[in-house]
């Protein structure tokens, strides 16, 4: 861990202003950033502690939705009665992630901003375009079982590890931000996480110093909510494939996938295929996939996982 300076800020605009300093990073729960700092994958010179901004409430919006403060802990968000009732896919996704201890610390904004778990990203002796732009990608041609099957590039095949973000993608969440000049933005979750392209070191479309204040959920859409996370052990592992689904009584619905791409993967245009079943839907959702020999099973797995969800939805 490199030496760093630390400051605690009191308001969101103060946070955004403090982040203008070169080498600054926000810290909230620290469940990912501190690990990365210990391994010198991240080496901020200045930490801006945003834990005391009061952004820890879940409020109803005028449009009938929920506004989730950036610092609401994952545990609290998953347990919120309104979330459990109207956005069960989100509650289930949260509880499928990490461990109880980690969820107690991890925040809503921090969860969106967690870095990939690609093993080559974590080994500083290996080239990684995400960790060190331009150094190359050791994962391509290497051990890729966990890595992306779609939306990847010749520079990066990492996946985004969040479960929460997959549910939020299915819910059409909006990420609210403020910048150092006080300017506010509302970023649809679909536009928040990036594909790697030739700039895989950029995970999101946030601008330098831009600070997340809240995530807003639109009014509930009803339907039955599922979050099905498939992994190599029963708990405490990242998804091979996860399916967030909201299925309406008429068989229509929404589907977002985790574990397959650099961002939560949803193809709205493909959702019209849902009433025709999992195979038809998944062929459309995963159109253009470029899996490796090691992770091609994820295509079949995604299809079968969705089939299980649809089977349960019918029961």
């Amino acid at each position, binding site marked *: 861990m*490199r030496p760093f300076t630390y400051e605690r800020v009191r308001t969101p605009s103060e946070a955004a202003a403090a982040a203008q300093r070169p080498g600054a990073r926000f810290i909230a729960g620290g469940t990912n950033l501190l690990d990365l700092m210990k391994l010198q994958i991240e080496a901020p010179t200045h930490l801006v502690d945003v834990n005391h901004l009061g952004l820890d409430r879940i409020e109803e919006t005028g449009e009938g939705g929920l506004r989730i403060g950036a610092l609401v802990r994952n545990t609290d968000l998953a347990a919120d009665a309104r979330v459990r009732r109207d956005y069960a896919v989100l509650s289930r996704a949260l509880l499928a992630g990490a461990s109880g201890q980690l969820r107690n610390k991890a925040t809503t904004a921090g969860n969106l901003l967690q870095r990939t778990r690609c*093993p080559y990203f974590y080994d500083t*002796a290996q080239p990684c375009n995400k960790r060190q732009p331009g150094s190359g990608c*050791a994962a391509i*041609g290497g051990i890729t079982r966990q890595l992306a099957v779609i939306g990847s590039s010749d520079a990066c095949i990492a996946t985004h590890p969040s479960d929460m973000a997959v549910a939020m993608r299915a819910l059409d969440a909006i990420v609210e931000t403020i910048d150092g000049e006080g300017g506010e933005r509302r970023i649809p979750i679909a536009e928040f996480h990036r594909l790697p392209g030739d700039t895989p070191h950029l995970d999101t479309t946030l601008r330098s110093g831009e600070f997340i204040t809240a995530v807003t959920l639109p009014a509930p859409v009803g339907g039955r909510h599922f979050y099905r996370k498939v992994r190599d052990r029963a*708990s*405490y592992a990242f998804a091979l494939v996860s399916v967030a689904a909201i299925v309406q009584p008429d068989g229509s619905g929404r589907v977002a996938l985790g574990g397959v791409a650099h961002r939560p993967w949803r193809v709205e245009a493909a959702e019209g295929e849902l009433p025709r079943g999992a195979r038809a839907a998944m062929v459309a959702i995963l159109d253009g996939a470029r899996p490796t020999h090691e992770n091609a099973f994820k295509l079949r*797995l995604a299809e*079968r996982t969705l089939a299980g969800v649809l089977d349960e939805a019918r029961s």
Partner: protein
Amino acid sequence: MKFDTPATSNPIDQLKVVGRPTTRIEGPLKTTGRAPYAYERHDVAPNQAYGHVLGAGIGKGRVVSMETDAARAAPGVIAIVTTLDMAQLPKGKMNTAFLFGGAEIQHYHQAIAVVVAESFEQARDAAGLIRVEYARGEGRFDLTAARPQAKPVDADGKQASAEEADERVGDFEGAFARAEVTLDESYTTPDESHAMMEPHATIAAWDGGKLTIWTSTQMVAWWRRDLAITLGLKPEDVRVDSPYIGGGFGGKLFLRADAVMAALGARAAGRPVKLALARPQVANNTTHRPATIQRIRIGAGRDGRITAIAHESLSGDLPDGQPETAVSQTKLLYAGANRLIAMRLAELDLPEGNSMRAPGEAPGMMALEVAMDEMAERLGLDPVEFRILNDTQVDPSDPSRPFSQRQLIRCLREGAERFGWAQRNASPGRQRNGRWLTGLGMAAGFRNNLVVKSGARVRLGTDGMVTVETDMTDIGTGSYTIIAQTAAEMMGVGLDRVRVRLGDSDFPVSAGSGGQFGGNSSTAGVYAACVKLREAVAQRLGFNAADASFSDGEVRAGNRRVKLEEAAAAQELVAEDRIEFGDLSKRFQQSTFAGHFVEVAVDAFTGEVRVRRMLAVCAAGRILNPISARSQVIGAMTMGVGAALMEELAVDKRHGFFVNHDLAGYEVPVHADIPQQEVVFLDETDPVSSPMKAKGVGELGLCGVGAAVANAIYNATGVRVRDYPVTLDKLLEGLPDIV
């Protein structure tokens, strides 16, 4: 004490203390944080500095240069020792890979520097500032590709011609060709990591030319000798202290870089140094269980009797390394007049392969017991009955050599009865309950029983306390407790009158912990020392030792009773001895047996496997402490589930390293993966094994579990997976078409 004839009755047979369920005597210290592990020995040496080890970033090649100026100038840095500062250090007797020194890189994360600083964070930060230039070499990282260059090795791991190395009985090829029903299949097991909770950790301090390390080792005497060799010291100038160990599983049998680097760092810094290997270094800097490619052929008559059996195994290791002896159980487990056993060893440039819990049998049984399941199906026999039909009470290669005890059939019958095996549907893939496909599987359990000479010193203090001193280790297995039970039984006192001191090289050399030989061997050594102490007590109190009995804190003979402590009232009595084993292990085959039974459910959509029930019925001689023995077996069963379903060090065959080198990437079972586990011990004594009449049990609990899981998955799904681990991607294609 020489043990060369089977035990007759002795004081242990009283079973007043031994054999009783006894909670760990050091348990309260551990649960309250007062049992200090190696990295926590803050009090043993003043002014400790912190070390951090830098590992090589290539799998094979040379270090061309190391730029350390920035690191040396970093805050808090006291000293840096790099591998270019010295020639390659000599290897200890038990080491395959060189641990430090010189420019040559044998494997990834080989130690190439230690940075010593005032704080842990400073040491780690500075290590990251060292710039290393490498010249990459061509490495051999792919076991399959290395097969053509693999050499025959004999049972002792020595290279020989195939004629000399391969073990043949009868005419395997002829009998296999004539057999009415045959099987010829290949199975693979991956590289596995010990993944113990406590990483390798050492505090080192020099006093002139004398070195003390407070460390975490399974084998105190081996570490002392090999650290002395490596650093060019006399063994008597090295002291090793390791009273508490947070798991080893074979990963702490042999001297490791933590001890060498702490010692070198402390010498350079002129201060005691503590360091631990970082978690990512455990996989690539230390040792692992090597991958195997195994071929099994079985031929049988339609009556189900095996006439021919062959087991061949290929594994790899660094030059001068050892094979994974995955064939060893196949020499002994089943009858059959015509046999072939063969091992091939390829040179690889991956990190050192070496012992991990039940080396040989653990991966060997994963293959053999699936082959037996497949063969039973081809014969139309129940898998339990097929095994029973082919039981042998003698060494199949030398029928004059009986097993000392062999109750495999009872283990299987009792296990089948308790588990409800009769309910199993012999046709695979037929049991469906909602989204779950369910199935039952079983396997025999087999692990040889090893005995190793073991010493102890026993003191009867002026306060009447009995103190045992031995360099035996307790790696979480319960050694403290069974040693206390042994001394209490022998001296006729309660456990509250016994103290046990372990893991110090100043104490008599013991068997140490490994190969499931530690429990039986070390308590037998304590038995021997207690026999001597009883003689000394009898002599001082004026008893004839042969007539005296020791119980309830008294020494008794005829009508005379004297309190034990009176023998030492004026002066402490000290006795020391060791148990040495004669040729009983040659005259008798000593092994341990089990029946493993598993029920699984497999998600018909996703292929996720959930183990629902597990049972092990074990026959392993006298069980010295049913509580800690059960704990050993359920831990081993858990490890077996890991091996069956998820554990695999993923080899990057281009760069030569294990990629998933942390506990997020190398998955072991979590609580949610492990169901109800039942363990049954048959009531058994084996007087051939030792005066304790006990055997090893900690590895038996692992051997066969993986195959039982794989067989249950086959029964549930109809998909036969022969490449471990059985992850869901290997099942998907064979699951019902339900999309």
